[in-house]
């Protein structure tokens, strides 16, 4: 065989491997999702269901609207805790575990670019959080709807029996209760929780690309999470105390700039409370969260791309 023919044969046997493949990312995403689901993480949903059932049966002597609000606050609080706790723990565990089990070797020894591996892991965590949040939302909406119907019927009956109220008054009173019931707006609260969890997961992934252990990753990510909620508030105090000193310039200001500001994602609480939210505000929040995730993932990739195992 001639050299040219030989070269052609070689050429044909070298497979075309796309440098970026959404298909491979999806495979890694689904594998991460299956891994997390089979780690029995969804058992949390049972705890959640019990909690919501308990909260919806709390019969303190408060107004009907308050009863509904309490159920909403308890449920969204639980969803919030689950989402960020899970974002930190799951993301911190996944990459070191792959490394310890040498699964990482077998995956990276296949034609998988490291960017795809990282994105697959991140999206897997996000998919798990997303599915869990949707299930929780459905469960919670069911309980809230049932509670709302019961409370409204009882209130209507009580108001009519009491007498002295016009039908408009009764209607207005019932409207106040409905305002705390099932509303489309609650979905925005769910989105806000998810976005915050996404940023937390991206930050944790960045930490895990340079951390030496899972525990270290969890601790550092939790500290960043907590500090990210009050550093802008604390900054005022520190900078006031330190003035224009060298410490202020070299330590406090850069630290504040580097750590994400999570306060802006705390809109969930008031959306649940009934504060109206515009689509524009939600889009701004989505944009900011995506920006955070993109930048932190890019930095994580920069550290991970030539990391040696």
């Amino acid at each position, binding site marked *: 065989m001639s050299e040219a023919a030989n070269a052609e044969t070689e050429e044909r046997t070298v497979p075309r491997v796309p440098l970026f493949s959404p298909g491979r990312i999806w495979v890694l995403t689904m594998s991460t999702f299956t891994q997390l689901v089979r780690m029995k993480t969804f058992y949390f949903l049972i705890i959640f269901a019990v909690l919501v059932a308990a909260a919806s049966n709390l019969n*303190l*002597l*408060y*107004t009907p*609207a*308050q009863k509904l*609000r*309490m159920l909403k*606050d*308890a449920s*969204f*609080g639980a969803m*919030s*805790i689950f989402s*960020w706790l899970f974002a930190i723990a799951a993301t911190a565990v996944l990459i070191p575990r792959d490394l310890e089990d040498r699964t990482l070797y077998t995956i990276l020894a296949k034609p998988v670019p490291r960017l795809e591996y990282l994105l697959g892991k991140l999206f897997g965590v996000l998919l798990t959080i997303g599915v869990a949040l949707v299930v929780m939302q459905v469960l919670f909406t069911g309980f809230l709807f049932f509670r709302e119907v019961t409370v409204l019927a009882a209130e209507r009956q009580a108001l009519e029996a009491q007498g*002295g*109220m*016009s039908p*408009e*008054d009764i209607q*207005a*009173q019932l409207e*106040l209760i409905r305002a705390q019931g099932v509303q489309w707006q609650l979905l925005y609260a769910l989105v806000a929780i998810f976005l*915050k969890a996404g940023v937390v997961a991206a930050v944790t992934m960045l930490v895990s690309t340079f951390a030496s252990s899972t525990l270290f990753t969890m601790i550092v990510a939790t500290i960043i*999470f*907590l500090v990210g*909620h*009050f550093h802008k*508030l604390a900054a005022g105090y520190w900078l006031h105390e330190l003035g224009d000193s060298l410490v202020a310039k070299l330590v406090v200001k*850069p630290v*504040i*700039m*580097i*750590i994400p*500001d*999570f*306060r*802006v*994602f*705390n*809109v*969930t*609480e*008031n*959306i*649940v*409370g009934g*504060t109206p*939210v*515009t689509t524009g*505000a939600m889009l*701004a*929040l989505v944009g*900011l969260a995506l*920006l*955070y995730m993109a*930048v932190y993932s890019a*930095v994580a990739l*920069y*550290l991970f791309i030539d990391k040696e195992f």
Partner: protein
Amino acid sequence: MKFGRTTRKTVAVLALLLVFGLLRTPLESRMTEKFVASGLITEVSTSQLSSAVGQSTVLAVLGGLRPLVAIYLTLHAFDAWSYREWDTVERDYRLITTLLPEDIDSWKTGAWHMAYNASASALYDDPDIPEAVGKKNSRDWILKGIEFLKRGIEQNPDSSTLHQELADIYRQKLEEPCLAARHYKLAMEGDRPRSFVPRFYGYFLARCPGREREAYDFLMELYHQGEKQRLPTLISRIKELEEKLDVPATHRIPDPDPDVEILKKYPHAKPALP
């Protein structure tokens, strides 16, 4: 060598994050300001909280678990109420409303505990306390309830409910018709007032010395709105004012038909046949 590369990478990562921070901070600050202005984010005074509930709770509050802390405090207050520990109830509601300043029901419930429950408890629950002291303590609790509601009104100036609650306390607990009327008026001007509020404004304005003419004109205006407003109290209050103001007989409203009145009160009752 490797060590140099690690250092270079660390510096590069910190620089990247710093640049990102510098770029996003103005954007985030603007967003936060807008969200605070539109009520989507509530800024909580942490210094007040930390002395009352401890650092870890403050962290929970800042971490987005504000409503959960409020629920805990609500349950705590409920417990304290059952043991009649009024100071604890008061402290808890002050914290709850710090956490959820927009939650009208919390302001209302807190004020109700102070002005009604705690004030009554101060009068009757401890037989060893001299009556005069009990009365003073009771009044102090009523005033606390009023002060509490006023803070709620500062945070929610458009709330008809809070003005109405305040008017109710002035009316029922302090028997101050002028102040009650003032707050029923504010309740009328607030957000979604209940339909009886204008009538109550008129009723208590009628009891406010020197404002009888104003009250008469207002109640007459309601009277002319039609049957819906012509409730027995409204008619009797107008009758009282007609006497007081010496309104000429031709301008007076007709006396109510007792049969019609009884039917209004008990719609299922059959009228007595002559």
